[in-house]
């Protein structure tokens, strides 16, 4: 069975700001690798979580899958069709199948357009003139649990949770198969995070959607994802079934992330794995294992040799010289 999404060794590079001459096209500016070789597969009807902290490259990876960035190397296959290196014209037909929800609930909504215009925008972009936009707007609003009269409102009149749901409505307009959700609960109060997540799960059950969820919040990821990948400096350091990783993390970074969430219990005794120092910048990648500068279990070998990827099970992978 072809997986819905197959990502293989994707690399995304950015040029550092070059000189004026370079901006005219002469000479090459130095490049940094925001995504340095990531692979994973997603089956239909599943949710894959990409977890990482700021600077890990997770948002860049998400945008590459959504066709917003060019992947410089590697392959992204949707239902067996290669998406990398497709020109915009070729990608346009996949925009019906793959849509994105953005991190900032208000920032992603055009401030001067009505909600109806915002959520029916995909129809207009795809030049679907025969659609009754009012009816579509009503349908989409009810799918996300918002009242129909919201169609005439403007983004500044909405709360954070409502704005987030408008973003979901928009992503649903062309009946996609895959939705990429960038930090879907960021900025939402805890009491309404559940609402949004339940909505996503319901949509998955009702219409068979698949999700790629980007998050730094492991608590959320635990509940809604089937598989996950932990990103550090543009690479997965551990990857596999969510349940397995939570029960038996293998990589020290995974372990420290899991133990970093403070327990909402003043008497909780936590075996915290504290990381040393600050995350290194991708402009100066550490030698050997890139995590060694912060790893509390670092040994000599880690500073020199890059660890190979180990596959303890068919669906698990991690890269560390000495696993936990």
């Amino acid at each position, binding site marked *: 069975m072809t997986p819905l999404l197959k990502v293989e060794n994707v690399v995304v590079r950015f040029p550092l700001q070059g000189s004026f001459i370079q901006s005219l096209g002469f000479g090459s500016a130095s490049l940094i690798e925001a995504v340095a070789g990531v692979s994973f597969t997603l089956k239909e009807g599943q949710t894959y979580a990409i977890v990482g902290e700021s600077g890990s490259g997770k948002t860049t990876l998400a945008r590459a899958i959504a066709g917003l960035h060019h992947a410089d190397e590697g392959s992204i296959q949707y239902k067996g069709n290669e998406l990398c290196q497709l020109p915009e014209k070729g990608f346009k037909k996949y925009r019906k199948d793959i849509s994105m929800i953005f991190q900032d609930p208000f920032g992603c909504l055009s401030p001067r357009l009505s909600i109806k215009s915002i959520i029916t925008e995909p129809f207009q972009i795809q030049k679907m003139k025969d659609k009754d936009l009012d009816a579509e707007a009503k349908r989409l609003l009810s799918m996300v649990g918002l009242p129909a009269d919201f169609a005439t409102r403007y983004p500044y009149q909405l709360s954070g949770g409502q704005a987030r749901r408008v973003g979901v409505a928009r992503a649903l307009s062309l009946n996609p198969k895959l939705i990429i959700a960038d930090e879907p609960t960021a900025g939402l*109060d805890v009491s309404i995070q559940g609402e949004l997540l339940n909505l996503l799960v319901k949509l998955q059950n009702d219409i068979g959607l698949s999700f790629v969820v980007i998050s730094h919040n*492991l608590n959320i990821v635990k509940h809604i994802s089937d598989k996950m990948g932990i990103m550090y400096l543009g690479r997965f350091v551990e990857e596999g079934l969510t349940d397995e990783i939570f029960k038996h993390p293998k990589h020290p970074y995974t372990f420290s992330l899991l133990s970093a*969430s403070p327990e909402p219990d003043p008497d909780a005794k936590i075996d915290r794995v504290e990381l040393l120092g600050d995350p290194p910048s991708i402009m100066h990648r550490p030698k050997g294992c890139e995590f060694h500068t912060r790893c509390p279990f670092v040994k000599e070998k880690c500073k020199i040799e890059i660890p190979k990827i180990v596959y303890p099970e068919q669906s698990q992978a991690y890269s560390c010289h000495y696993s936990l």
Partner: protein
Amino acid sequence: MSVLSVKDLSISYQTDSGPLQALRGVSFDIDDNNIVGIVGESGCGKSTLIGSIIKLLDNNAIVEKGEIFFQDKNIISLSDDDMKDILGVDISVIFQDPMQAHNPVLTIGQQMIDIQYRDKKSKKQKQNHAIEMLQLVGMPDPESRIYQYPHEFSGGMRQRIAIAMALMVKPALLIADEPTTALDATLEVQIIQKLKELQKNIHCSILFVSHHLGVIAELCDEVIVMYAGEIVESGSVRDIFHRPKHPYTQALFACDPGRILEKSKELPTIEGEIPNLINLPKGCIFKDRCSQRIDRCDDEIPSTHQIKNTHMAKCHLLAREQK
């Protein structure tokens, strides 16, 4: 001995559609050497509360009634000039966004020396004090890093610098408004640890505002839970986290995905939204979203019931219990 004592504070904002009652009857104390946490979600009034303590409210804010006593002065009736003598000396503030907390065109060292302008020390002494503070917050190699600019530091480092600057003056009260919300989890725990250490060192009190329950539980001695402009429950950290009595507190804890240990595909939420603060509903402010609502809640505003020692909650259900 209270460092800060807020008594029956009510503040509203003038809007085109009428007064928006942002704070209603808020009362609490912060004792010496204590860390008090305020838990609340959007619209609970914590920004207004902080704004009123540091006297930086919007122009359309009106203090309807109440007092804020800092040490022995009433902040409400203090002049702006007198307030300036307190801010940055006895009261320090750390804000949410470390990326915007510093002047981008001055080095860290310059800024840390500048804020010591009231001290009559030599520049060298001020610089040494700055280096000391940076060491205390865990910055590596501070002697050379004081010559760097804010953009050369990461978010986590910038927040640490902000903490160093706030505590440099050894204030009696540090107000921290969501200082770790913008940081990753691994940095968050580092900052919290540092705050705990520094608080012990300097013996200041901290007013810590956050919607992150885990951080509050780990850091604070006392906790205040706010909802839509009122304090609905307050007490020691164990009272609140182990024996929450107000339905909102209970519902809030139930929603925290960190507390839900078993994987579940249907997460609990609190249905509905906070009520309109311009046209306040009758009765209890939480009634429309409360799963334990009784008839009395519709018309009667609940009074604050004492449960035990310092543990209090504003709910009709407690009146029954006490009977």
